[in-house]
């Protein structure tokens, strides 16, 4: 592997918190999201969705609906029978393929599953027509809890499988039994994490049109335009080169929009079928019912300790609740397999065994959401550690310090065979403790004058970032996953970056331009980043899994370096100098030490395109200033810590978050302000996950809170200021020394919150440590009253 380009500290463009170039258009209301794009003659689609969680479809009556004067078309699986199977070869255990029909085929498996698509002149009318569709259901037993669906006598949700469990694996390293036998303390807990939704402010939406030239254009609020294009080609049998996918401005994704959804195939198919543009904009109820859910796992976590807090062994069983299907494309493994492969976290624990089970239930399927399975997996590990700390009369900080991988031990391969590149965990932890005044706070009384209880909690995380082929493999998902970027300079010396990455809030139009400006030596303002449109970008997997800074930035560095080198070769010829003696800065190419011997980048670019007598011979030097390079980096592991101060009302269970501290080490940063934004947004979602968010299904599989009225995400009074600090240990392996930064808080802040709760309750008989998320008022009172806990082990 070639040695990556090193960037030392803050440079002219890197490490600069410049404001984002994409913002003015957004601030003026001019940015176009998918529902803002208008094509004349667009028809709208509403879906007839299942109201039962598990049932055979008997007698679907469309006649009444078809008689509506404005009913243009109704489509079902009869007309469009395509579906998809997620299949990762080479997973540790056998992954049985689970078929997802895009339109329900004979039976429905969760409330919200699409049965029919209605095409009408407006969404209002389409819904009127949906109201006229009638259907009889033959209901089947619906499974809400994985442990019920797993039973051998459970009704099969997919009748072509032998069980509702479609994946199981087991792994062991070291001598786990011996470690447990020799331990001073073993803590065994069952942890149940709640189900939530990424719930971006913009719901999903798809628009499709079939052109006169037999090309298909699809707009989707997606994080993965290129892979979606390929997938549409495969699933619809349309030649890929005739398909254009456009992700316009996207209003948040968080991993939820990094899937392929049935609607993203149904709409293009309909457009091609009826040769008219069609649009579907998801409403919030549909969103909460049928956009990928996340985070719900049942985890049996056993950790063996020595009395000084050393962790000697871990035994884990992680049961993933896959919902009714295996979410396309990542599969239902995305939670549990990732969690188990990252189980040791920041710690040197040498003996570990894990079992993974992924099981179907009659709920919306579970997919990727910021932090994937690590949110639940880390929570389970850390709550057991917190409990152990109390039983051993230690603080969690003592256990951290005892078990951390040390600064001089990197690169470090963990007991689950993940190789962490770099970090200084002790330093990060100290920074967090200092900023949050943790040690002093712990010495103070917990009760306040007005009968409340105070608490402080800290949590540390290691986050696997830049999900390329190697990271994915180390997390249990062997697959090929690189991106490409094209850097192109035009005759006027301006630069276009065509990216396979795509921003849905991360400011990539700014950060990738910063990287390009640094590499090329041209002014930031001379660079434009094109992302999101497969007609003008470059093939890439998209933006998710904290990969854009590294993979996007890295491929920009490589391609821009090629262009830079070409420019210098041509300039050297024109200026009669040695290429090695030339510098480029702010668009000027000059001889080192003789700044008056210079030409502009624009002049050299113009010569390259238009002056064949001035440029070098075209047989020796290609007269082009364009380069496309891939990047598929080794895994880079970011790390950090959170501290949370709370005040608790022990009579109502209401928790108020008083302070949040976030420390992050994501290696070199392209734009620290953008990183702060990720840290704060991530903390917001993490605290929402920890305190408020729970999608609750009843016994018959009905989602009880499919609206923002009762599915609660943080508002501005839920969260305090989020105080941020950065530690920088560059990755020795990645271009620029960057590491990813997006998911961090989802591996940690909800843990700090629960630790704060445990601390606030430290005077009670216990120790009282929550083994569920979220910790709403009911769960807090349950903990205090010792009722309704996951079964004791």
């Amino acid at each position, binding site marked *: 592997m070639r040695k990556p380009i090193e960037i030392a500290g803050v440079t002219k463009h890197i490490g600069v918190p410049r404001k984002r170039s994409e913002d003015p258009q957004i601030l003026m*209301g*001019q940015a176009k999201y998918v*529902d803002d794009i208008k094509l004349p003659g667009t028809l709208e689609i509403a879906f007839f969705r299942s109201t039962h969680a598990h049932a055979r479809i008997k007698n679907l009556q469309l006649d009444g609906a078809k008689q509506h004067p404005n009913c243009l078309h109704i489509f079902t699986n009869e007309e469009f029978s395509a579906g998809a199977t997620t299949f990762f070869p080479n997973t540790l255990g056998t992954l049985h393929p689970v078929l997802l029909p895009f339109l329900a085929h004979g039976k429905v498996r969760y409330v919200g599953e699409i049965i029919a698509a209605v095409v009408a002149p407006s969404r209002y009318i389409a819904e009127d027509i949906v109201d006229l569709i009638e259907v009889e259901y033959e209901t089947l037993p619906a499974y809400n809890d994985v442990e019920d669906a797993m039973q051998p006598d459970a009704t099969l949700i997919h009748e072509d499988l032998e069980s509702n469990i479609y994946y199981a694996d087991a792994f062991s390293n070291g001598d786990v039994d011996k470690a447990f036998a020799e331990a001073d303390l073993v803590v065994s807990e069952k942890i149940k994490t709640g189900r939530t939704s990424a719930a971006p402010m913009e719901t999903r939406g798809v628009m499709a049109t079939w052109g006169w030239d037999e090309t298909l254009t699809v707009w989707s609020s997606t994080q993965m335009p290129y892979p979606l294009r390929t997938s549409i080609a495969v699933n619809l049998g349309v030649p890929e080169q005739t398909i254009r996918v456009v992700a316009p401005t996207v209003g948040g994704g968080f991993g939820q929009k990094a899937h392929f959804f049935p609607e993203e195939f149904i709409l293009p198919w309909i457009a091609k079928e009826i040769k008219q543009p069609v649009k579907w904009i998801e409403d919030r109820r549909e969103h909460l019912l049928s956009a990928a859910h996340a985070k719900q796992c049942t985890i049996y976590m056993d950790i063996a300790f020595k009395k000084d807090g050393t962790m000697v062994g871990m035994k884990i069983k992680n049961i993933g609740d896959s919902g009714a299907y295996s979410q396309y494309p990542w599969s239902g493994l995305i939670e549990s397999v990732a969690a188990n492969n990252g189980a040791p976290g920041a710690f040197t624990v040498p003996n570990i065994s894990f079992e993974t089970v992924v099981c179907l239930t009659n709920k919306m399927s579970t997919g990727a959401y910021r932090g994937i399975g690590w949110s639940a997996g880390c929570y389970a590990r850390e709550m057991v550690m917190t409990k152990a700390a109390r039983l051993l009369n230690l603080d969690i900080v003592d256990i951290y310090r005892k078990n951390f991988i040390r600064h001089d031990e990197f690169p470090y391969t963990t007991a689950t065979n993940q190789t962490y590149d770099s970090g200084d965990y002790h330093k990060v932890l100290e920074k967090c403790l200092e900023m949050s005044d943790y040690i002093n706070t712990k010495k103070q009384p917990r009760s306040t004058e007005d009968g409340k209880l105070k608490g402080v909690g800290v949590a540390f995380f290691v986050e696997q970032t830049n999900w390329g082929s190697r990271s994915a493999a180390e997390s249990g998902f062997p697959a090929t996953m690189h991106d490409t970027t094209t850097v192109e300079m035009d005759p006027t010396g301006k630069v276009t970056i065509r990216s396979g990455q795509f921003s849905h809030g991360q400011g990539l139009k700014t950060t990738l331009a910063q990287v390009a400006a640094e590499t090329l030596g041209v002014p930031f303002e001379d660079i434009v980043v094109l992302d999101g449109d497969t007609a003008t970008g470059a093939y890439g997997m998209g933006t998710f899994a904290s990969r854009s800074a590294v993979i996007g930035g890295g491929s920009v560095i490589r391609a821009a370096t090629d262009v830079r080198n070409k420019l210098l070769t041509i300039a050297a010829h024109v200026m009669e100098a040695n290429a090695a003696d030339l510098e480029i800065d702010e668009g000027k190419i000059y001889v080192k030490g003789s700044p008056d011997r210079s030409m502009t980048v624009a002049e050299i670019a113009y010569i390259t395109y238009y002056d064949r007598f001035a440029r070098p011979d075209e047989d020796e030097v290609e007269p082009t200033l364009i380069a496309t390079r891939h990047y598929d980096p080794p895994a880079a592991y970011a790390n950090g810590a959170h501290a949370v101060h709370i005040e608790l009302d022990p009579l109502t269970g209401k928790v108020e978050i008083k302070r949040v501290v976030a420390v992050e080490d994501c290696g070199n940063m392209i734009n620290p302000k953008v990183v702060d934004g990720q840290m704060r947004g991530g903390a917001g979602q993490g605290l929402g996950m920890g305190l408020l968010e729970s999608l609750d299904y009843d016994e018959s599989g009905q989602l009880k809170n499919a609206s923002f009225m009762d599915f609660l995400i943080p*508002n501005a009074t839920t969260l305090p200021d989020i105080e941020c600090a950065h530690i920088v240990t560059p990755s020795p392996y990645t271009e620029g020394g960057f590491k990813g930064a997006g998911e961090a808080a989802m591996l940690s802040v909800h843990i700090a919150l629960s630790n704060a709760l445990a601390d606030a309750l430290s005077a009670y008989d216990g120790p009282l440590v929550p083994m569920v998320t979220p910790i709403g008022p009911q769960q807090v009172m349950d903990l205090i009253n010792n009722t309704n806990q996951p079964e004791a082990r």
Partner: protein
Amino acid sequence: MVDKKKISLNVNGVTYDKEIEPRTLLSDFLRHHLDLTGTHVGCEHGICGSCTILMEGLPVRSCLTFALQAEGKAIETIESLDTDGELSSLQNAFWENQGLQCGFCTPGILMSMKAFLKDNPKPSRDEIREALSGNLCRCTGYHDIVDSVVAAAEAALSSGSAEQA
């Protein structure tokens, strides 16, 4: 079938005459009948706040208003804030302080804050959070939005004008 009704609405100082189904929500009227797509729809049950516009200077949910209810009342949307592409002081404060990421919630926040700052020119951070509580944001964690509003308030005070937005 119900007859369409004629409607005359004043939006951003311009009067528009259209014919619509009575059930047309103001949010849809603005976005699809007037092509003013800056106002966004996030939930259609009045909670997320993305659709917030000003009606007679007061922030209201355009998703919980029928277009017909808005007749005779001056409507202002996000498109009214900038002057020929030059950002207002409020918008600029958000740009300087990264008070947005994906931008979907931003129009509703800007309209709410325009009204809020007019009545509260010197708000504390807690008062700002209280005022923001009716606008949900999933990307920022709110901190940078609060910074932006503080900056906007300071800019308005130092330039001596109460209505700078």
